[in-house]
């Protein structure tokens, strides 16, 4: 990643991943660890239970680089990941909460 600050990174092509997972205490470590151990930064993370709480949905905002296809394949291999869907960077899920992330 050559872009160093947030405004530079924001200008790069992005993607939003929507990941359905089994809801338990370790699942976020499994998902996030795949990225951190490859020094692939996650720009945004949202997660909430869905339905009765057996499952959760994880939303990840990432910057697209050559590794993203491989990252998605790795996420799909996780035992507790049920589905992965890829969206464009303009997906509404992160835009609606931007107001909570304004610098003071």
């Amino acid at each position, binding site marked *: 990643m050559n872009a160093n600050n947030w405004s530079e990174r924001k200008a790069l092509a992005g993607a939003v991943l929507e990941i359905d997972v089994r809801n338990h205490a*370790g699942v976020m470590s499994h998902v996030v660890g795949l990225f951190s151990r490859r020094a692939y930064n996650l720009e945004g993370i949202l997660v909430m239970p869905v339905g009765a709480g057996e499952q959760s949905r994880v939303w990840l905002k990432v910057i697209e680089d050559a590794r993203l*296809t491989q990252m998605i394949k790795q996420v799909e*291999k996780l035992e507790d990941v049920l589905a992965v869907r890829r969206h464009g960077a303009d997906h509404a899920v992160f835009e609606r909460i931007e107001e909570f992330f304004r610098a003071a």
Partner: protein
Amino acid sequence: MSPSQPPASSTPQPETLSGAQIVVRLLERQGITTVAGIPGGAILPFYDALSESRSIHHVLARHEQGAGFMAQGMARATGRPAVCLASSGPGATNLLTAIADAKLDSIPLVAITGQVPQAMIGTDAFQEVDTYGLTIPITKHNFLVSSAEELLRVIPRAFTIAASGRPGPVLVDIPKDVQNQRIEVHEWPTPGAAEAPPAFDSAAIDAAAAMIRAAERPILYLGGGVVHSGAARQAVDLAEKAALPTVMTLMALGAMPVDHPLSLGMLGMHGARCTNFALDECDLLIAVGARFDDRATGKVAAFCPGARIIHIDIDPSELDKIKTAHVGIAGDVSAVLQALLPRVHAMPRTAWLARVARLKADHPLQTPGIDDVRSHYGLIAATAAALDDEATVATDVGQHQMWVAQAYPLRRPRQWLTSGGLGTMGFGVPAAIGAALAEPQRTVVCFTGDGSILMNIQELVTAAEEGVNLKIVLMNNASLGLVYQQQSMFYGKRTFASKFQAVPDFIRLAEACGIRAVDLDATQAPGAALTAALRTPGPCLIHASIDRDQKVYPMVPPGAANKEMIGG
């Protein structure tokens, strides 16, 4: 999975059992007959329950890493998931290297660790470590069990995950209170078994067959997945039918007999010149259960530069990871090859086979001294001559490993047990013990070096205790040979920290551990002494000094293209 496994069954009367007893019963139902481990506080309830099992033999390792590699040896020799055990804290951390090694070589392993009671997790309790967190990146999957009830689901699932698709290690961390929790068991789950492999794309098979038909200079490139999938027969059939010169990765050795006319042996960093030259000329590379590891490919951009690529692997994330495939097929390689065979036309491919024969004649593997038992190649050849193809061959990691990979006539899948991906010194002796425990009818020979053997030397005591039919061939050059070689070749001969100033008396060391030892240095007839030692049942260490300045040749310098080999 063994055919004797019981199906799911409801018990006539519910039994009240502890979590520990449930795990033991599930392992028994799984068909597990040998486990390796070391007890400690947090796993004592489990050990107490295990003491009552009549069908499971516990092998007491002398270090948890040894237990992990013994389980690996069992799994590599049989292809079935094997079990290792450790307590919490240092017991678990000592297992990590063996687990990571299993991950990189896709070995089905189920590691069961004790954990401090749930109420104490997160308090820095005695011998508490975050085993779950530590093992996330080195397992295929892991579990932290929170109730005895959960064990009925988790234990069979652990075996299913370890054995399904691309195999790998699974860790189950069980807090002590869960081991002690008593519940009523009304029904036993079906033992975990490998899930049916996913369906593959039939159109891609046709495309692959057409590419093989159209190719003028194809090469078949076999990886460890061929062994894991039990596809060696199909791979050889394909090679023979379509006249495909065949290379193997370190992990695939034995898949095609090395003296098969189509075999080019091992490719890559220490492959023969003819092998790497043939790859450089090929116009089609058919990769089967191989992952384009950097030790196999050298500089990737220069690997098979003129070739189109067919890549078959059960793990979809391997396709296009290093090299983009023209046809990628995600599927079980055994099933895919089976489907491919009838669609491939028999063809003589005379010109290409003649060219490969020319390369073999002009640039064969050089094995100087192969007739002299006191040389490294000669020791390997004499060992092979004293044994047959039923013997299992394990190695440690270093120069001896590469010499054995080059020169031992491997002819059988699962004959060859070596630490490929992680390259773990210390792998050899405990893995060989595990193989000998799993298949006591075979002779298991472990080639090792004086650097490697010291990294798990304590398991000599375990070998003596178990009386395994293990012959350790120790090639002693009083150095970390591969480090010494790299420093000699690429670091201006500054051979720093690679020569041992003090070397133990390995003969007395083996004897002190309860193992017979033979010193080939001290005999006038080393060949006869070697043969006699190999043919006498039970554990034995065979010691031979070798020349420190011998190198593994050819060698592709790190980062260079495979055709830029030095030596050989």
